[in-house]
Structure formats: C-alpha cells, structure tokens
C-alpha cells in the first residue's frame, strides 16, 4: 500500500509533527516502501496468540496503590522543575491552551 503526501501530512498532524514540503515527499516515498514491506505480514498467520503472551512469564506488576508523599519527594521536585523550560513557584509554565494573537506571555 502506498502512502501519499496528503496521508503523510495527516498522520504527522496526529503525531504533532510539522514536516516541510520536501520531507513530505521524501517520507511518502520511504514510508510507502516500508509499508509495502510490512504488508508481507498478510501472508503470515499469528493464530489467536496475543502480544500479552509475550512477557507473561516475567510480569511482576506491583499492586497499583497510591503511596503517601515522602520527605524525599521535595528534592526530586526541585530537580524536576530545574529541567522545565519555564516554571513559576512549584508549577510548570506553558502557553495558553487557546491561541492568542499576543504570543507566549
């Protein structure tokens, strides 16, 4: 199956990626070749197995319970915020959800 430029642009938008017109053309041709290759999977029968079977032997998930905040969370929070592109007090700063003509501030 071949992927056209329109299709590549649509998927890129879903993935929150902006690609140039030149990239769109290159990606469409490269991805078509890859999808063609992947389409050979139609010739194989996986039966009823599911991917969950793959690691069933090594699943050791802890019970998913909330834990109380601990004294060690403080420094970790500071380091987390140190990595943030923008923060104020203990909060991350991001642009408004709705676009405004005035820019980031």
């Amino acid at each position, binding site marked *: 199956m071949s992927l056209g430029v329109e299709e590549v642009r649509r998927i890129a938008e879903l993935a929150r990626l902006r690609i140039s017109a030149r990239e769109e053309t290159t990606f469409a041709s490269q991805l078509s070749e890859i999808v063609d290759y992947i389409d050979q999977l139609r010739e194989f029968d996986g039966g009823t197995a599911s991917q969950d079977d793959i690691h069933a032997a090594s699943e050791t998930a802890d019970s998913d319970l909330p834990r109380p905040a601990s004294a060690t969370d403080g420094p970790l929070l500071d380091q987390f915020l140190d990595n943030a592109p923008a923060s104020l007090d203990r909060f991350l700063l991001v642009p408004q959800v709705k676009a405004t003509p005035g820019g*980031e501030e």
Partner: protein
Amino acid sequence: MQAMTAEGLAAAIRSGERNAVDAVEAAFARIDEVDASVGAFLELWRDEAAERAADIDRRRDEGSPLGPLAGVPTALKDNMSLAGHELNCGSRILAGYRAPYTAGAVERLVAADAVPVGRVNMDEFAMGSSCENSALATTRNPWNPAMAPGGSSGGSAAAVAAAEVPLALGSDTGGSIRQPAAFCGVVGVKPTYGRVSRYGLVAFASSLDQIGPLARNVRDAALALGAIAGPDPRDSTCSEEPACGFLERIEDGIEGLKVGTIREVGTSALESDAARGFEQALETLARCGAELVEVSVPLVEAAVATYYVLANSEASANLARFDGSRYGHRAAGARSLAEMYTGSRSEGFGPEVKRRIILGTFALSSGYYDAYYGRAARIAGALRQQFSDAFDKAELLVTPTSPSGAFKLGERVDDPLAMYLSDVFTTPTSLAGIPGVSVPCGLDSRGLPLGLQILARPFADGTALRAARAFERETGFECRPEAVS
C-alpha cells in the same frame, strides 16, 4: 592497563596490586589518545570518576570488601540515567536535560564498584543500526574509520573495541547491543526481557527494551551481567528471579549440548563472507563437542516487519511525552499549547525519529490498527511459541548476528528499509524476549569482524554465555583493531 580484562583489573584492585585511581587515569589517557578519531564519547566525567576511584582505594585500604567490578572504568550509553548528569539520548530534544535519579542497572553497576567515566554516542532514541542517526556526533568503527560502528549502541561498542574502557552498558530493542558488538569485534549481551531493570532507561519500545553489557571477552560480559541483573520493584516487568552467578559454570563447555540452526533463517540474506564465517562457526561449535541439529521457527521470516510495526507503535506512544512542556527543547514564541507541542517536537526530533513516529502512528490509527498492530502482535505471540517449541529440540540456537560485517558510513542513511533489514537476525530474539549473545567469529575478507549470535530459552542467559565462552576459547579471537593500535 589497557590490555587487562575487567575481571583481572578488578581482582588486582581488590588485592591492592593496583589502584582504582590509576585504572581510571589510564582510561582517560587512552580516551584522550584515540577518541578524537573514534568519536565514541559525548561527555567525560573526569572529576567524579577520580573521586569515586579514590573512594574505592580508600575503602580497600581500610579493609572493606570491594565489589566484583572494583575500579573498572565503564561507559554508559546516552539513554541511561545517572543522577545529576546530562542525558540526551542522542537527540537535540533532550539538550540540557539532567537526570534527577539513577537508573536501576546503573545503581547496581556502581554498587559493584564500577566507575562510570562518561556517556557514549547512540542513534537518536536508539533508532538506527549505524549510530549515524545521532544528532550529536559521528562515531567511527575502530577497525576502519570509514565504516559504521553499528547501532544503536555504536558508542558503547566502539569505546570497548578501541580499548578506551574494558566495559560499557548498551541497550537493545531489536539488535542494538548485538549488531554493533559484531561490527566492532566485541561481545554483546541482550539479556532475557525482564532480567535487567529498565528503570531510568529512556523508553523506546517498552516491551522490547533491555539493558546489557558490551566487553572484549565473554567472562567480562558475564561478570557485568551478574552485577546489573536482578529484581527491581520500580520496573514492573523486571523479573523477581534473583540473578545467579553467570561465571560459576562458564568454563564448563558445551560437550554433548544440542545446538540448533534455524531452517528458515535463509543464507540468501547473507553476504558471502558472512555465510562462510557462519559455516566456520558451526564447525567450531562441533569441535567444541556440540551436537548440531536443525529446528524450524517459520515465523522468523516475519520478524523484521513485525518488529517495525510493534516497536514503532510503542515508540509513537512513548515519545509523546517529549512536547516541550516539562523538559528538553521548547520552541520559542508559541501562541498556544498545541503550537508549542508541534513546534518543539518538529525542531527537536531528527528525520528517522519522525519517520518512525509517523509509521507507528499510522499502524495505530483508526482503520489500520487491526491490519497492522493487531496482526503484528498476534504474530509476535505465535513466534514466541515457535521458539519455545524449538528449545524442546535444542538447548541453544545460533544464527549470524548480522548479514554482513560493518558497512560504510553514509551507505544506507538514505535508505531506511535497507538499514532495517540489517536487523533480520536480531529482531526475532527481541520479539520472543529470549537472551542473545553476540560473540566475534573471525574477520571477513576486508579485515572487519563478524559475529555469531547464540540464543537460549528465557532466563538461560548463563547457558548462552557458557557456549559463547567455549566458542571464544576455541577461536582465540582477540579484539585488536589496527586503526587505533
């Protein structure tokens, strides 16, 4: 000191015959001497490594017991966390990111008294088979600087092959430890899925990612795996089975052991040198006393396609977190949240990462999910069952690690499918979650190393290492690349 094994060096440091401080100094001297031409390291941690080494020497002098990797200089792939240190994952999108905590495997490494000396290059987000997708540096194969070191753990393999360090950690999703190990003439271990904690490893495809060691000989790789393997409650897929000593039976040989070749692993994919190398490897295994049998794993032929659907689907979800809000690169001047997401990701990710995210998003998208992701997931499950059946007929399976020795830098960068197909022998192992060891099996006609891949059933990592050691003893291969001698 460069000629010493990690095991020998640690023993000498424990006994007081040598000092960790000198071992670390010697490693930095070697890095200063050759890394300008190899390009493995992205950053060196000179002061911290010297302090850690001095502490190891001090503890020994005070009579405290030291760990199994006492004073061994070790390189870390650029996707595993060491608290306080920068971590870029080979990407511009993580420029300036500092790890707030240490990865589980790295914690164990340091607890075994190894000394992390720096971080090494990789394909961006571990997506690649040549290290050329790194946004940060070019790494060259120590055997021939015109050749790729393999990938994605190309920096780890090159640093070990060039004797800059005796040991490095890499990560393997579809062959990213084994293929560069083969290209650079070193030993690389992709452990059983769940054998080593993934806590603190930047996720690519979480159901496939595993951390493992690269070393210049099998015993050092086994020693390192023993140090980093074991339970970690912070990774829910990490096995609770304690890791037993991988060195205990490593010299026992493989006399009488059934070793299988896979009928459907066609030699047609192999270059002639690699085919000859594999034939010779089978003769070597027979000389070691192995009984060679043929087994059938029909779905290996579907592995590359299955892998690229599953791995990229997971990647498209895992990499959604890189959006400019919490860490890493943020696009300037965005007027809305959506604009910030799109701008940051578009500026921060390189072309291969974008290609894979698009492919994964496509495979998961409405209307295509069943045809691609669903089908691939079912095939992966069936492939695992076929491997399990094959291991009823043979204790171990062997394949070439890669269809050829190292290819030229630049040769495949514009042809992603050709690059993907170089993973034809390593992806089945990853999908099945079983351990795979790549051990050097000689040189091709260009003088470049070839690798033999040894596979075992889940959690039989030790058996694969025992066979690799027997094979290594028989071939007597030594990693001595002339380009950096």
